């Protein structure tokens, strides 16, 4: 091995690391012991490595990053039983879609707002996996933002005051569009296996061409659910209740909407 060959190998040598026992460097390191010029070059290489390493190691980590990472993990954690529910729901959905696709002469897919509302009603009535259990609306908004779902919505004050938020689902979509789903408990006795009886769905107002254009609510039944729908800004809201009527839903709507 020549000195130049040894330099080529040793330029990747990192002093103070496992490279000292890496066989790839053994011969070149040994040659250093016998070649003064190579030894001098190697000494300079080690000093230069240490100097540059110290500059990289000086990169300052922002304060609070560790705490933020840990806090986010808490937000994202989903208990195993919920994962099982989500999985079961996903499997059921796939089976249902496959079944529908196999049916001859299946009606064309509907794109109108009634179809959207029906779908959300059936989702609330059926089995969905709560992705975040939380009684904190700020935490829920953060969760939606992290999941790239809709997070710039306004929860009516009456809904906040008269119902208890229990969680949310961020991965709901309607024909490729995100829908944020917030689950509430109205205070009535809850059904077994479902802590919610009131759901707020938030979508973009372009979710359907005939989506409501006004902040005054439209009341309709959707898959057995009582619903109120309205639009404020570029967001369209559907509030669905497992049981009840316009008067019941009115308790949770913004003041100006209350009938």
């Amino acid at each position, binding site marked *: 091995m020549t000195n130049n060959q040894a330099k080529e190998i040793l330029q990747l040598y990192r002093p103070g690391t496992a490279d000292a026992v890496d066989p790839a460097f053994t011969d070149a390191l040994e040659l250093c012991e016998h070649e003064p010029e190579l030894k001098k070059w190697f000494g300079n290489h080690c000093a*230069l490595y240490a100097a540059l390493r110290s500059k990289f190691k000086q990169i300052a980590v922002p304060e609070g990053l560790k705490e933020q*990472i840990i806090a986010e993990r808490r937000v994202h954690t989903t208990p195993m039983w919920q994962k099982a529910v989500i999985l079961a729901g996903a499997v059921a959905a796939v089976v249902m879609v496959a079944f529908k696709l196999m049916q001859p002469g299946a009606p064309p897919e509907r794109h109108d707002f009634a179809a959207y509302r029906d779908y959300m009603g059936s989702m609330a009535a059926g089995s969905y996996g709560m992705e975040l259990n939380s009684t904190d609306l700020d935490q829920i908004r953060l969760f939606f933002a992290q999941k790239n779902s809709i997070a710039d919505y306004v929860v009516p004050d009456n809904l906040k005051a008269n119902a208890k938020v229990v969680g949310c689902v961020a991965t709901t979509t309607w024909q490729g569009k995100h829908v944020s789903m917030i689950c509430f408990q109205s205070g009535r006795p809850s059904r077994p296996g479902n802590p919610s009886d009131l759901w707020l769905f938030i979508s973009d107002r372009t979710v359907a061409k005939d989506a409501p254009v006004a902040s005054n609510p439209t009341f309709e039944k959707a898959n057995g659910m009582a619903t109120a729908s309205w639009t404020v800004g570029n967001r369209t809201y559907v509030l669905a209740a497992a049981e009840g009527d316009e008067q019941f839903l009115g308790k949770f709507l913004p003041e100006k909407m209350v009938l």
Partner: protein
Amino acid sequence: MGPGLNFESLVARFYEPLYQFAFSLTRAEADACDLTQQTFYVWATKGHQLRDQTKVKTWLFTTLHRAFLESRRRQVRFPHFELEEVPLDLPTLSPATVNQLDSPQVLQALAQVDEVYQAPVALFYLEDCSYKEIADILNIPIGTVKSRMARGIAQLQSILTRGEREGHRERQND
């Protein structure tokens, strides 16, 4: 998460080196924070799939690097060229010169290094990973790791030497 691996202690142990690696790649605090957070998020959701817990560090760095490449891919395609065609230059940079620089200057120089060499160079200086681990992190063969490192280090030192010469000339003109 695997048994014996507490999330909080894992974060405490690795968030700084991961952030430093991310920052050396992005040179932007917000992007480096995002990459670091994303890495631990992926760990929280998929880390349990890792059977060999001695490879946690490699797993985390691999995940961060993939996330970085993914974000870069969305912005711009890497220029492709044959590595063998890049001449190996061995500049003469003294430790004393480097000692006069500050960390941002060195990172600025790294930013001028060909992009494909930046991650290997950052890992060369930042981490004590073995070359096998670095190869796993970057998902390239060890031979390629070494050739990219050698060329990247040569480029970095050349850029720093050039900067030193220009600074010297400016001082003389003053």
